[in-house]
């Protein structure tokens, strides 16, 4: 049984723009893959297609051998596919801790009938989630702001919250969309640290990032995307050194 994320022949066009052109990509468990390429290469679209935000024109996606094609966004998440967003998309009216609680693999308070039928059982499940969430926050150095409105914590910490929230469902595959943009200092280290530990636990990680130094430090390998295709795959150093890729990246 193939493990990790497997993408075969993924296609998507928006009018005249091709964002995925028979795209093929495997993300193996425990590996950190950096996705690089110029703006408009289709990196974020790839995340959107894999997570079900955008419906592909064709192709297959599977996670740990289970086909994801045709499933809703929330069904994919429940199978262990987790992501962060370029623009964070936190829930501004909730506290940091509550933001995390929403992300549990099974959210007991989601079903109205279950809520009315068995409030006690829900309370116990919720307590377990709370412990897990506080644990994640502790590890990421966010314990101090757990009960603060997420909208009022500094941007760097919000970035961390975005990652922390994506960890709540104990993902099998984690897609990070520009986790470093606008981040410096402590958060920079913290995110690297968290991602490495995830990979060590056998989670497949894919990072879209413009910060090449970050990709080089963190990723086991790099994938160069252009116009909806994987053009090259290899060590990040080799990709950066390739003059043709550099020209595509900075040219046009």
């Amino acid at each position, binding site marked *: 049984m193939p493990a990790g994320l497997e993408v075969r022949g993924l296609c998507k066009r*928006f*009018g*005249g*723009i*091709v964002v995925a052109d028979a795209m093929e990509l495997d993300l193996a468990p425990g590996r950190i893959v950096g996705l690089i390429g110029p703006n*408009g*290469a289709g990196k974020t679209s790839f995340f959107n297609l894999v997570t079900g935000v955008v419906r592909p024109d064709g192709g297959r996606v599977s996670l740990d051998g289970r086909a994801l094609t045709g499933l809703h966004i929330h069904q994919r998440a429940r199978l262990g596919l987790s992501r962060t967003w370029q623009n964070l998309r936190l829930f501004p009216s909730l506290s940091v801790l509550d933001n995390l609680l929403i992300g549990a693999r099974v959210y007991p308070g989601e079903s109205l009938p279950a809520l009315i039928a068995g409030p006690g059982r829900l309370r116990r499940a919720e307590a377990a989630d709370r412990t897990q969430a506080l644990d994640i926050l502790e590890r990421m150095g966010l314990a101090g702001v757990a009960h603060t409105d997420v909208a009022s914590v500094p941007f760097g910490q919000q970035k961390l919250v975005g990652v922390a929230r994506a960890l709540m469902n104990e993902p099998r595959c984690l897609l990070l969309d520009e986790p470093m943009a606008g981040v410096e200092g402590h958060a920079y280290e913290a995110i690297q640290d968290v991602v490495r530990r995830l990979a060590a636990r056998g989670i497949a990680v894919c990072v879209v990032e413009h910060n090449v130094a970050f990709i080089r430090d963190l990723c086991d390998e790099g994938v160069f995307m*252009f*116009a909806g*295709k*994987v*053009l*090259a*795959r*290899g060590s990040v150093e*080799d990709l950066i050194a*390739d003059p*043709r890729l550099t020209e*595509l990246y900075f040219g*046009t």
Partner: protein
Amino acid sequence: MLSPLILIQILWTSLATSSCFVLFALAFALVLKVNRIFNFAQAAVMTTAFYAAYTVVGLASGPGWAGLLAGVAGAVAMSAVLELFGFRALRRRQASSMFVFIFTLIVSELISYVAMLIYGTWPATIFPSLFWPVTLVGTIAVSQWDLMALGGTAVVLAATFAFLRWSRTGQSMTAVADNPDLAEFYGIARDRVFLAAMLLSGLIAGFSMFLYGTRAQVQPGSAIELLLFAVAATIIGGIGNLAGAVVAAFVLAIIQNGSVLFIPSEWQGFLLYAFLFLAIVLFPRGVRLPQRKRLVRRTPAPALGPAES
């Protein structure tokens, strides 16, 4: 068995009757497209138009043209008040679309109560009689009202579409409807365009309400019922599509009037909502607010050899 003559007669009468409804729908669809408001206060505009014309002609025995003038002026004034003191203030405050929607509902109710207080609840007509001179064309009875209504509607439709297409203000309306922010960026003053759309809509609604009131009895609450037809036609025709709303209103009005041949008359009203419901279930994609157009950007294909690894 129906004789073809009766069929033609019914078709003709339905055609003439549909004219008012086509304009009600046009006025509603215009504001929905440009201002993006489900403007139920159009009922208030229509009520104002009717009672202004009724006051001049029915109560003060003025001439018909003065009634038409009063009706249209009343409608345009009411539209201006709505935009300047209602929608504009709500827009400044960035009120939610639901808040604006409630505002329009409440205004139309308020005006109908005011009309009730002043004119009572009895049905009224603009002219004392609803009967119009009839000429026989072949064997088809053609009333003067039919000709006036169809002619007037044709003129208003043509003028409106010409205005939207060729006048500067009309073009600005289309631009704002497509993308208000971008239009502002190009120097089109949004507030003025919104006001223009409301005035134009008021003009159309006032004229059509005058036509309607010369042919049928009107009560303070009638306009809301009439407007619901326009809402249904606009939804079926595709939101943001004026021509679609006009065609839908036209077809629906003809079917509704013509259906008297096939189904019991008390079910005529239900037919409209049956269509509305079918449209909602069958063409859900056809009925949504116009989306902002995406910026189109093409990426040239790379001239790169096989990927290395």
